């Protein structure tokens, strides 16, 4: 057996226990040279724990790791880096205040005597990055470049420091289509250099586009490892969930929608969103579609008063209302689940219970506390009906998986019994199971007569539940699709009309 046929990384029997749970149970993972290997699983399946065990962030409680034929035992990220296992995280973990070159060479700068050899460092950085397909001035601060470029710099750093195994933890989560293309070309190039790459993502299309093999985790165990060209997306989803899922999650669209509830007249803010008009009826789901930065989030924030509009009026049930702050909006029966769950949604250190009753308590005013028994009742009710999975109501919400956090946030606003519910990317970054549940929930709320405004980048999702889809482009409303016209193809056509986004053709 030649050295080349030996796997680059061979982990066997990896186990990790946390108090009260088995996070990883006898997990095996094999990575070959020049292979892009997807690591899949729902949130909480054990993907991140496995990565943390491989990179030494956690000490594993059992199992062995063979790297390039040698047994290794990484004890810290630095150690695993020097062994040859590099990691790039979802949020770019570089320093925006340093230059690109400084980021690339931090801790291993070329030195002349006691001083950093700046010119040599900048030259080396320029050459290195050219090898990755980006030609930028490495003497500029990292923050002057886009997230995709920063991501490539992070990858370049990881590869140069490690060079055997590269772990990419949701690298595409905050990139748009063109940026994903750039990243993929870089990853493919690394594959041809013989590096073993682990790719973690929620986007199955990207997995099939890029990866050779996939290992699927569920509840801390490996449930299967597949060569991707032999299987379909459906097979993988079935593996991940352990059950069959309707590939097109569809909520029953109730045909009858009620009386106009919210009438928006030329609401806008200069420099942010062109004035738009929109009427939402009771029991209607209005979808907001568009590319990243097209104005989806801005629309939802304006309607909720999180950003103050500088023109336009709103009517609720035919009466003029003024919404200049989220407090006004809540008072009028609005609710908003924001896009950025971590910073604008959850209060990480508060318990799940406190997070759920937060909006209700805020509306009541702090002088009239909700009795503890009522609080428990509300929290338990939503934990049950939304199937939020947690040990108890006292756990800090930051410890929950993304899907469960999102459900708790929904519970927070449902507890206020809103008339108008605004959801901004309700299914971003959550696993497929929770995804389907949230879509089903949207359908239920609609049947109960709530008016919903949902901004989403996932067109299939909008197709599944929206009665109407507003298409945005360049911070402007450019189209509206109703009823049977709502298809992915039509949405894409509306977005792409008169623009040069060839990527979407």
């Amino acid at each position, binding site marked *: 057996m030649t050295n080349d046929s030996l796997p680059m990384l061979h982990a066997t029997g990896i186990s990790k226990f946390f108090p009260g749970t088995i996070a990883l149970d006898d997990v095996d993972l094999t990575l070959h040279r020049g292979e892009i290997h997807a690591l899949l699983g729902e949130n909480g399946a054990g993907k991140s724990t496995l990565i943390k065990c491989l990179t030494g962030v956690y000490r594993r409680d059992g199992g062995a790791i063979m790297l390039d034929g040698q047994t290794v035992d990484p004890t810290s990220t630095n150690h695993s880096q020097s062994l040859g296992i590099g990691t790039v995280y979802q949020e770019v973990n570089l320093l925006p205040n340093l230059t690109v070159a400084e980021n690339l060479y931090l801790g291993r700068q070329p030195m002349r005597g006691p001083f*950093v050899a700046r010119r040599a460092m900048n030259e080396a950085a320029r050459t290195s990055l050219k090898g990755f397909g980006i030609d930028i001035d490495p003497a500029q601060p990292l923050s*002057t470049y886009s997230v995709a470029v920063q991501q490539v710099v992070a990858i370049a750093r990881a590869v140069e420091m490690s060079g055997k195994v590269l772990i990419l933890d949701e690298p595409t989560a905050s990139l748009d289509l063109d940026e994903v293309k750039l990243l993929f070309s870089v990853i493919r190039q690394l594959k041809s250099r013989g590096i073993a790459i682990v790719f973690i993502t929620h986007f199955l299309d990207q997995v099939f586009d890029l990866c050779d093999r996939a290992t699927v985790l569920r509840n801390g165990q490996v449930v299967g490892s597949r060569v991707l060209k032999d299987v379909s997306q459906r097979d993988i989803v079935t593996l991940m969930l352990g059950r069959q899922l309707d590939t097109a999650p569809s909520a029953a669209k109730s045909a009858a929608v009620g009386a106009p509830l919210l009438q928006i007249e030329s609401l806008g803010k200069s420099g942010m969103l062109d004035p738009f008009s929109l009427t939402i009826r009771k029991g209607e789901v209005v979808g907001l579609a568009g590319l990243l930065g097209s104005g989806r989030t801005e629309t939802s924030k304006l309607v909720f008063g999180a950003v103050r509009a500088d023109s336009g009026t709103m009517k609720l049930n035919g009466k003029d209302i003024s919404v200049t702050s989220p407090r006004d909006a809540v008072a009028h029966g609005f609710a908003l689940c924001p896009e950025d769950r971590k910073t604008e949604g959850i209060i990480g250190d508060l318990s799940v219970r406190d997070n759920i009753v937060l909006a209700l308590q805020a509306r009541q005013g702090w002088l009239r506390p909700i009795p503890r028994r009522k609080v428990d009742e509300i929290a338990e009710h939503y934990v049950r009906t939304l199937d939020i999975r947690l040990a108890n109501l006292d756990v800090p919400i930051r410890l929950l998986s993304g899907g469960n956090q999102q459900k708790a946030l929904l519970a927070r606003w449902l507890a206020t019994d809103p008339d108008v519910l605004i959801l901004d990317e309700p299914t971003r970054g959550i696993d497929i199971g929770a995804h389907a549940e949230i879509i089903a929930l949207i359908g239920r709320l609609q049947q109960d007569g709530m008016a919903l405004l949902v901004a989403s980048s996932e067109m299939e999702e909008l197709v599944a539940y929206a009665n109407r889809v507003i298409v945005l482009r360049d911070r402007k409303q450019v189209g509206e699709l109703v009823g049977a016209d709502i298809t992915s193809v039509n949405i894409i056509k509306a977005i792409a009309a008169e623009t040069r986004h060839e990527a979407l053709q």
Partner: protein
Amino acid sequence: MIRSTHLPLIVTLLTFVLAYALCASQYPTMLSWRVVANLLTDNAFLGIVAVGMTFVILSGGIDLSVGSVIAFTGVFLAVILRDTSLHPLTAFALVLVITTAFGAAMGATIHYLDMPAFIVTLAGMFLARGAAYVLSTDSVSITHEFYDVLQSMYWKTASGGRFRLIGFVMVLTFIVGALVAHRTRFGQNVYALGGGAGAARLMGVPVASTTIGIYAVSGGLAGLSGIVFSLYTSAGYSLATVGVELDAIAAVVIGGTLLTGGYGFVAGSFFGILIMGLIQTYIVFDGTLSSWWTKIVIGGLLFAFILLQKGLTWASTARKKAATGFIAQS
């Protein structure tokens, strides 16, 4: 090449030049070597401590203890030289070891106990001030021939300005400080911490040793500043230099360093010190203004610089998306 990160430094420089020009237009005698020499001499101790403060603030921290450490150093030296026969140089070495170790201990507390620098150095401030009181509550004058030798060392210009030793010590501290901050690995690590401690840790920056090093530098420079202050005043007094830490922070911020860390230059703090000294000199020349006007002008300047920093942050986020260069590749 001018970057947006250089802008605060340039503004500081322009402010200084403009302020000096204004002063000189009103009092032409201010444009003399004598005034320049006095600027350096009178602000030497503040300048030295501002170098240490620049490192601390660049890393995203704060050090409130330095004023007390200067007072402690002065009293310590005065008492040692009065009560023992130690040579001043030995006493200098001893006090530098003590203050550096004191700073390092604060750095270790901040890192290992994961405490805010504000609280830890506040405790350090009380400790150092208290230690100074314990040594002596009175002003102790220093009379030692070696002090006379050091104090009489100066370089005289033709026009009568005297560049004294302590001014040179400050300038040297700034030069060494700038080299360390901008040209060494330690300096890069300081900026890295200021840019984001979490990311810095993941990138393999030795956070513990860097944090300890930063506060050790600040403590040690406060000690050096105390030595210079004792040379300047020929005395040690436990009530001296109250609030100097705030002056140092003001100088660093006027010098263009971002209070949240990560952006700034050691050279900026030098001009921050000079601007503050210039205001004081102007008030002396004027003769009718209360010296408290210094505080008001500094307060105004600080406010202006904070607004400038905020403006720059906005501007840089606004055009963040603009500049990217891809080589087309498939």
